[in-house]
């Protein structure tokens, strides 16, 4: 197998862990771990939402209707950093971010702005922890991009004010041929 100059240039340092012959593209779990994602999210929450706003690392089921905000990372690893929660929680987050400046009625545009900005801050810091050079998109809000390769996913589930929020670092590309599409246990 030959490695193109581009692949060579953009290859992250190879620790040899969890890699096999034929691998040419790292997956999220090889580049960042749950604890780092959780720490990045916690720091963003404390800074943007409030000093007392602790994220509790407890998995809980998301409500049937959810809203997501995300930024795309394009580089040696390409994918999205996605925040997902219930619409009421996204609105509560918006109120918390706006603080005393929050109007009595929060409209959809404000929720998209605030929730998107949290994804932007979390995503920017996740990007910095991934191998570069890479680019970061503007935040988007809506239905989350699909998980195309379950092996290329780091997901952290937390509770904020008792409500579930998930933070996913998920690859945009399908699994490579010959590589399992499901994570190893």
């Amino acid at each position, binding site marked *: 197998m030959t490695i193109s100059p581009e692949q060579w240039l953009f290859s992250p340092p190879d620790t040899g862990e969890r890699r096999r012959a034929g691998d040419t593209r790292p997956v999220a779990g090889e580049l960042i771990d749950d604890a780092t994602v959780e720490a990045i999210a916690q720091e963003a929450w404390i*800074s*943007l939402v409030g000093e007392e706003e602790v994220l509790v690392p407890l998995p809980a089921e998301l409500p049937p209707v959810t809203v997501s905000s995300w930024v795309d990372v394009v580089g040696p690893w390409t994918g999205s950093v996605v925040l997902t929660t219930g619409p009421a929680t996204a609105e509560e987050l918006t109120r918390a*971010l706006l603080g005393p400046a929050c109007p009595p009625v929060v409209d959809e545009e404000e929720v998209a702005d605030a929730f998107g900005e949290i994804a932007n*801050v979390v995503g*920017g810091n996740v990007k910095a922890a991934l191998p570069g050079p890479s680019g970061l998109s*503007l935040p988007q809000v809506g239905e989350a991009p699909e998980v195309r390769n379950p092996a290329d996913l780091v997901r952290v589930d937390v509770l904020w004010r008792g409500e579930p929020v998930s933070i996913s670092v998920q690859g945009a590309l399908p699994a490579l041929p010959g590589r399992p599409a499901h994570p190893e246990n």
Partner: protein
Amino acid sequence: MKILVADDSRVMRQIVIRTLRQAGYDDHDIVEAEDGRDALDKVSAEAPDLVLSDWNMPNMTGIECLQALRAQGSAVPFGFVTSEGSPEMREKAANAGALFLIAKPFTEDTFKEHLDGVIA
């Protein structure tokens, strides 16, 4: 003293302005811009003493705005407040003439650390 705050997120502009006030810079005039293009126009129109700008914005990014300002001969003090604080971006910002880069998330102490000496 007049400070221009450029960010495409209205919520983030409010958070930056709130943090400025919490850091003790509460007696300055604040002008807001919603992207790099708007910031470029407002530097001419409003003559701010300092620009605090996001990096990643539609229409014109923060770095493009800074480069355009310097190309026009403007020496307005310029700092970034951005979610990306990699060494490469800090170097790019410094090479373009930025005084500092504050990475989001930030605190009022981060603001004090970078703005003391820039804001009288």
